[in-house]
């Protein structure tokens, strides 16, 4: 890579489409709880009612907008790729992050499924290396694909020599 400008290319694969629903549910929950608290307070505390209800309204509108649009944005940015040599993941929108973990350095491969993820038939693959700060997470994969991927990674990792430090 000499001469010219270089940049990181986007990883090949997008996440499963259902991840948008999963993100939306999470954001919705994050919005509903403070709105409900504010609304209930507004119903009981007469003197501050207009202010509390106004705050509830503002939070609700902002939350709704975020819930509708942010996951669409995220979906375009969040991508992943597994080659024979490395795991490559791109996340984030405002703070974009590319993470690369070479196969030879991978120590463990885990799949995690929270209750909400299970409802959406999604799973998270977590690839850890010997560095405490080098873990790579692929969130929101189809659960069958995730299981298959974890198995494939484990096989490749086992075949690669070295103690991964």
């Amino acid at each position: 890579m000499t001469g010219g400008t270089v940049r990181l290319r986007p990883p090949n694969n997008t996440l499963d489409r259902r991840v948008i629903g999963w993100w939306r549910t999470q954001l919705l929950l994050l919005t509903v709880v403070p709105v409900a608290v504010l609304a209930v307070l507004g119903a009981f505390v007469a003197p501050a009612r207009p202010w509390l209800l106004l705050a509830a309204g503002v939070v609700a509108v902002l939350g709704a907008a975020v819930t509708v649009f942010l996951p669409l944005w995220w979906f375009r940015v969040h991508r992943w790729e597994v080659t024979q040599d490395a795991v490559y993941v791109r996340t984030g929108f405002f703070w974009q992050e590319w993470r690369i973990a070479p196969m030879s350095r991978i120590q463990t491969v885990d799949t995690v499924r929270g209750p909400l993820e299970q409802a959406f038939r999604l799973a998270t693959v977590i690839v850890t290396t010997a560095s405490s700060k080098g873990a790579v997470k692929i969130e929101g994969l189809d659960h069958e694909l995730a299981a298959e991927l974890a198995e494939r990674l484990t096989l490749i990792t086992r075949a690669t020599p070295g103690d991964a430090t």
Partner: protein
Amino acid sequence: MSGTGGGTRPESGGGWRRLDPRTVLVAALVMGGIAVGAGVPAFVGLVGGRPVWQAFTWVFTGAVLLVVGGAALDYVRWRRTRYRIGAERAELRTGLLLVKRRSLARERIRSVDLTANVLLRVLGLVKVRIGTGEQTGGGESTLELDPVTREEGERLRRELLDRGTATAGPGPHREGELAVLDPAWIRYAPVSFVAPALGGAAAGGLMQVSEWFGAQGKLIGWVRDRFQDTPVLWIIVALVAGACAAGVVGALGLWIEMWWNYRLEREPGGTLRVRRGLFTTRSLSIEERRLRGVELVEPLGVRTLGAARVDAVATGLAAGEDSGHADHKTLLPAAPRATAQRVAASVLREAASPTGTAPLTPHPRAARTRRLRWALGAALLPVVVLTVLGVLVTDVLLYVAGVCAVVLLPVAVLLALDAYRSLGHGISGDYLVVRSGTVRRTTVALQRGGVIGWTVKQSVFQRRAGLVTLTATTAAGGGAYSVYDAAESEGLGFADEAVRGVLAPFLERVG
């Protein structure tokens, strides 16, 4: 003392050994110390309401119970603790109620550290920590033998860490002593950040103790009397100066206690050993195989005097343990920069330290703009808040805001410019070198083979300015070292060149 040692360390079948029985004496003495420390104030308190003999009986009974109880507990612990260094594994059985067994594979043992406080030293004992340096969370991967005799500790250290000459690396560097303490280095102690912290702690401690004795009001009154006719400003100046003086004295004392008799040696088995300490002696060993580089640390005060500290970047150092092990990885205390570079070079078995030789690539001017913006933002925030409050509440705050602006803004700008000047990255032989920071400037030389992944981050603002933050993850030290605000294309090229083959498949050429 040694007479008691002979018969009481039976080596029952299988090579199981016991700790030194004098641990019971140590426990009794420690408890005795606590009893005296707690007993005197209690006695003073009790004497107020009852006859002296009664108060004395109460306190004495309590003290005896404490000492006997502590000694008995420690005796049981001693009875139930056994360790064995086998051909394959090092094992420890211990536990007061539940028997805990812990065993470490010998080939995985990475460190054997000996510490001895004053009490242990007088008795010729040491505390031994055997670690595998694995980050399994919790202290599960260490065995602690507390205490054994000094000879036994040394024997364990030699036996467990010596792996023959097979691991001794190549290079011109000799074994033996790499650095010894120069007492003149003490001049860097007062300018460290320890001094003001200790000063504050001294003032706080004085207030606390006076409160225990119900004399806090008297103390404040006494101080006020001293300064009856002095303006407020001078009182503040005098008190701050007093606290600073206490801090400096404390920092000097702490430095002497920590670094007295310091020596850094390379041992035949391929181990680096740091020995130091005036009252509490410590011996810390780092296996060279685990070394992934060194870090040159220059806190602001030390840097202005042209000095630097050298830390080891090694895998499996007790990084997660927060209790008093912060200086675990220090190979050289603050010393003149040339000395620091020389020691760094000999630690790495290089002719010259990569932290000193590499011409570092400076970062683009956009990085300077970002730093200036942050600094001005941080400095202006209190000024703006004070001004708004001044307009709304009282004019006095406006003057304070003015003073803040005059003092803070130039400091902020200077720090920002210095932070920008500090930024740099480069490749020197087998090492990638990264420098950043102003209040605590660090220059890391990390083995290129020790990098186990890259993380590239870019915020919206960085994207507009064409900057990226590149983070090399590693199993050693802090786990990750970052190149902040490098030019996007040049930075990626650097990361690609530093660690061949990791980044290349994911790079694309533009235009």
